[in-house]
């Protein structure tokens, strides 16, 4: 597997507090990488570093490097806006814009200055199809996105992220606010999307990591304890701390 990200000696601080310590990781392209670990271990911090979402947090500071396709996304020349466009993100709670379904998807194009209505139409349809929600919404594109159910909203958010043609999809506990059936559908979707996208998913739910990921990283107190193929991680982890966590003996 090719690596999409090379994370090297990543250290992250919020003010004086260190949130990540010497993280090294090679995130494979076109695969699902899961990030697990107890609350506060730095999972969100980690994925949010991958598209510089954390830049917005006051006091945030990063050391080390994150190479995406060989280029350090934190280097001077890098355009944050561009990084974020290439590396899309989906959040814990579905957060559709309070606009129509159509406008939610179109937004990403509009801010890039795309005006051509036909082009936008095409992208809207394609993105919704990719996110496996087209059938459910195609007759109600002008309706408010808030009228959708939680699970639909989350798929809409995925479609919205796909609309700007990203290469990577970061997901921070995308199903923790969603009922089990909708969760199943999103897991299915992610599995399909990995054919074309590099996916990194943070999850509190170990079973979810087990079900959908190819490779899993286990964080503990800001450290990457183990980074292994998921099936190995769950049957025969290398590190005893991983073993303890996986078998529920942690803490």
């Amino acid at each position, binding site marked *: 597997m090719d690596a999409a990200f090379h994370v090297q000696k990543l250290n992250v601080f919020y003010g004086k507090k260190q949130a990540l310590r010497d993280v090294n990781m090679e995130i494979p392209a076109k695969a699902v990488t899961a990030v697990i670990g107890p609350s506060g271990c730095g999972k969100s911090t980690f994925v949010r570093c991958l598209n510089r*979402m954390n830049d917005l947090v006051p006091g945030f500071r990063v050391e080390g490097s994150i190479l995406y396709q060989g280029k350090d996304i934190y280097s001077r020349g890098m355009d944050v806006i561009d990084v974020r466009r290439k590396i899309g993100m989906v959040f814990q709670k579905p957060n559709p814009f309070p606009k129509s379904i159509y406008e939610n998807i179109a937004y990403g194009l509009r*801010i890039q200055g795309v005006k051509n209505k036909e082009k936008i139409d095409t992208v809207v349809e394609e993105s919704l199809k990719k996110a496996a929600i087209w059938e459910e919404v195609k007759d109600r594109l002008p309706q408010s996105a808030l009228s959708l159910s939680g699970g639909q909203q989350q798929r809409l958010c995925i479609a919205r992220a796909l609309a700007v043609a990203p290469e990577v999809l970061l997901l921070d506990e995308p199903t923790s606010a969603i009922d089990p059936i909708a969760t199943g559908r999103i897991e299915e979707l992610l599995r399909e999307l990995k054919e074309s996208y590099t996916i990194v998913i943070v999850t509190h739910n170990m079973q979810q990591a087990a079900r959908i990921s190819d490779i899993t990283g286990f964080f503990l107190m800001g450290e990457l304890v183990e980074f292994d193929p998921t099936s190995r991680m769950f049957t025969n982890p290398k590190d005893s701390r991983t073993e303890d966590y996986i078998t529920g003996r942690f803490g």
Partner: protein
Amino acid sequence: MNGQETIRVEISDHKRIGRLADRAFSILGLFATTVGLAVLLVLLIDVFIDGYPRLGWDFLTQYPSRKPENAGILSAWVGTAWLMVLTALIAFPLGVASATYLEEYGRKSWLTGFIEINIANLAGVPSIIYGLLGLGLFVRGLNLGRSVLAGAATLAILVLPIVILASRESIRAIPASIREASYALGASKWQTIRHQVLPAAMPGILTGTILAMSRAIGETAPLITIGALTYVAFVPTPPVSLEPPFIHPQGLFDAFTALPIQVFNWVSRPQKAFSINAAAGIIILLIITFVMNGIAVYLRHRYQKKIRW
């Protein structure tokens, strides 16, 4: 648990009293709630009975007069209209801009903290103080005289905190997740504010602004303080006309009166006939106020229902 038996014994009495108190309170509460509404009703009926006879077309089209039966509110309502338009034009952009800064840009610092307390305080400063400010600053300081502009500026400053607070509430109610979503798509900060935050917050902002205007429309004291005339037999120059130069800013500097002032003027007179005029004026004033409030309540209701984050 050892003491459980004794606890039981104590309970039964206690329980009966509890029940009774509960029942009693539900009656008392209903009564307390209706008191206010009853008074409101009485007030409306009283005003209506007093003022109804005087209402009519000429009441709206006549200037005030020393003869009560000839006196009308033309100059008053035109003045009020002028004031409202100008006030809104000043207060709305400033209020929204200020709210946007404080919510979106203002890093937590002593300055923003200070601005925040300051605005909260301004919202509670008695309106008459604003009158004094208007008097000292606009009428005398900037030498605007007792003009429509000075009045509108005073009222705008008076309602500015209301607009800012409502706008801030509304902007704050937009969850951070919406902003993050926008950033994650590669939007810049201003794009995010312009395309997501402000449109989403607009219903709330408008509601707040309308409420602020309905407050402004009834304000009497500050206008009196800056010296709005209580007896005006002309209307300010209309801002536009069909003849060149079409636009007449000089209207801004004309003297003016306003509805509540007219009402106050009439109330203050001992003659019964003027009280009738006052009541009639009040009816007009109340209608405008109620309509504005109605719109605001409707807006708020509608959007509160629709948007659940």
